[in-house]
């Protein structure tokens, strides 16, 4: 099959970028989107041009490395599917596809379709953990956890940190990502001692990184390849508000 790609090419952070058109014939509908780019890159290499830079690693939808916009939709048209598992059979022969990087102030472009998502690591570092030094743990069955709580925590913990939520959000908010971690840990008994400080610190960090605010639009949930629910944002807001009230000094007026 044949596809017409329009791909964002940008040499580095400081250089201007532009869309470049590539026509590629002889593609196979069983290929993944990334395999199609591999084939395109082989051609470009032989022609002596620079291959398209895009991020990828596991190619089975779990590492969270890959992701770009396809015709304006983060990870493309198939629900709950990252671009590495998106096969070409979901496109028409001869279709035009516009591939662009995640766009957000907090995700500066490094090259072509590759962006810097290290802000996510800094959000986790600001409290997305339970402080348990190695060796200090009691027996695993000492703390019973209901099946339901474990399942709901797992739903939130399934986040792969790909950044699609930020890219899809008109405000470039990282609330789904941050809320997912706050919910995962906040739903478990082990996560309670640090629950308030975690919410305060992680939300503050998220704001400092330059992500926008959540205005309940829901684009993030729609594109999330792991089906993380908007509910995690409500939990984050709940924990944040409760912790903010508790942290307030007694009124002085």
């Amino acid at each position, binding site marked *: 099959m044949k596809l017409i790609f329009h791909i964002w090419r940008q*040499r580095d952070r400081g250089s201007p970028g532009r869309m470049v058109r590539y026509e590629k014939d002889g593609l196979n509908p069983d290929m993944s989107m990334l395999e199609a780019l591999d*084939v395109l890159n*082989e051609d470009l290499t032989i022609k002596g041009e620079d291959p398209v830079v895009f991020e990828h*690693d596991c190619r089975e939808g779990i*590492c969270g490395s890959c992701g770009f916009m396809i015709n304006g939709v983060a990870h493309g048209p198939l629900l709950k599917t990252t671009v590495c*598992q998106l096969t070409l059979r979901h496109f028409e022969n001869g279709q035009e596809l516009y591939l662009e990087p995640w766009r957000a102030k907090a995700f500066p472009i490094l090259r072509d379709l590759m962006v810097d998502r290290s802000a996510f690591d800094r959000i986790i570092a600001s409290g997305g953990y339970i402080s348990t030094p190695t060796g200090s743990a009691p027996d695993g*069955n000492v703390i019973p956890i209901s*099946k339901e709580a474990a399942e709901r925590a797992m739903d939130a913990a399934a986040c792969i940190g790909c950044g699609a939520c930020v890219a899809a959000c008109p405000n470039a908010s990282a609330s789904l990502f941050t809320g997912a971690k706050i919910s995962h840990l906040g739903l478990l008994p082990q996560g309670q001692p640090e629950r308030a400080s975690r919410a305060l610190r992680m939300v503050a960090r998220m704001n400092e990184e330059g992500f926008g605010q959540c205005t309940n639009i829901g684009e993030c949930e729609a594109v999330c390849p792991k089906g993380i629910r908007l509910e995690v944002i409500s939990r984050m807001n709940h924990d944040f508000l409760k912790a903010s009230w508790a942290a307030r000094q007694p009124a002085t007026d």
Partner: protein
Amino acid sequence: MQLTETIETTRLWRPGSLSLAANAPSGPIERAWDKARFEMKLVSPANKRKHEIIVVGSGLAGASAAATLAELGYNVKCFCFQDSPRRAHSIAAQGGINAAKNYHNDGDSVYRLFYDTVKGGDFRSREANVYRLAQISVHIIDQCVAQGVPFAREYGGTLANRSFGGAQVSRTFYARGQTGQQLLLGAYQALERQVDAGRVKMFPRTEMLDLVVVDGKARGIVTRDLVSGAIESQAADAVVLATGGYGNVYFLSTNAKGSNCTAIWRAYKRGAAFANPCFTQIHPTCIPVSGHYQSKLTLMSESLRNDGRIWVPLNKGDKRAPNEIPEAERDYYLERRYPSFGNLVPRDVASRNAKAVCDEGRGVGEHGLGVYLDFADAIARLGRGVIEERYGNLFEMYQRITGENPYQTPMRIYPAIHYTMGGLWVDYQLMSTIPGLFVIGEANFSDHGANRLGASALMQGLSDGYFILPYTIGNYLAAHKFEKIDTLNEEFRAAQDAVAERTSRLLQTRGTRTVDSFHRELGKLVWDFCGMSRNAGGLEHAIGKIRELREEYWREVKVPGAAKEINQSLEKAGRVADFFELAELMCIDALHREESCGAHFREEHATADGEALRDDARFSYVAAWQYNGGDPPLLNQEPLSFEYVHPSQRSYK
């Protein structure tokens, strides 16, 4: 145990003179680790902060080690080539993690896990290490639960378990089909906590390209910043490699695209012995290759074999759709050959049999490299609902990739490279033959012998990182004096110059073929001749071909772009150059080991009915290879003795 033969000098290898002592404590095996810990020298808390430690890799082993070392008070620098430590390939492990908790009261114990692992490894692992692994397994679960890993639970709130291949007890802990992801996120979060505390400095998008040895000790690494292209040096008092396995030598594997052997291969070339490189594991249930453009293979959980029946057409070249082939014209070859284990034979046996029927021309799918995994009987027996509940997410993934509905038509599966048991040789302290160079996780060779059991890789990575290395590295640091070292000194500059020279050579070759085209060709060679089954003629042939192709690589490779920029082709080119050299050593190791054991199947060494035939008298040893410049590598042996689990022939008939 005494070895019955001395090593001969051949065209391809020569005898080495390393004395490889594991240095496991003497006395009863149950007390060995306690005894070792008591005998270790300690570094006082005030002195820990004076030591710098480099950890390369941020998967289960690397992240858990870096976090724990920082908790203890050491200064840690942690490196990964991905954009974040959370993306290391441990994240893709599906099934689970073993631990001898005996929560199910079904007769499990530390001793049984030890026994199963030694036997599963076909008696090519070191007993003392495996026993320690089984002992530590229970603490790993505790640690991970405390970190908030959302393991599956029973309704009463206790931890759930499931059973897994190679064991008769239920000892596998899991978090849906994403156990590796959840364990890695636990370790990653512990690591980020230390980053926040200022005790770990993280270097993402940074690749180690050489090891620096000063006065016989590992004292640093040379790295390339994958964004700026800058080549830099980092010094430390000890270096830990946690860089995973080398399955990508085959090009097509279940590994992530970036997984590579460069860190351990550079260490090998600086003097670290490489153990059992030919022990590579092939997983029987992967989605088959669909075309020449294929970039990687996707694993389907082994649990599918619990309900699926494996078959191929009875007759060669039968191209009918599977549903049109009548029962009498199907060959359920595993059930036929192994009536007592049937479709549940271990990984190596299932994989070899699939290859055999495809080699006979009875394989299915467009390219004839596949066998059916059929759920029709299970659906008829249990109903579609039960099958959906058990395997729904896997069926969905299969359909997403292949476009076929496995509820209606049988899945097609084929074996794929999945894990490498071989790796850098380490002693009981997890230290390589270079003092101060420690190797943990899949990157070392230690615990799985010639075949790894399911759900044991996660266990080993975390055991090494959380509970073993943090002690043993202290013992090393306390026993040595460390002069302050400057990365401007002679050894660092020489290593840095060598890396820069190699990089520019790759860029300046400006040949006619892409890196991937070479990698595919190399992978096919290794897969055909050093894959699921091997023979002397094939291995000799492959060694010759690999050398020819490597020579062509350095003459004809085309790497676009420049050194001082993001250049993914250049990254790949360096890794593939190392795969070429490792591939040759794998073939040499496979050629020298004239027996079949675990995943290493030599066609000349099989029983009358085609099963693996070990030769304990000649090969009950670890083969540790040493780099010898341009000359054939040196073969050293660490004899293995089995005082607790006595070697026997495995049988699944």
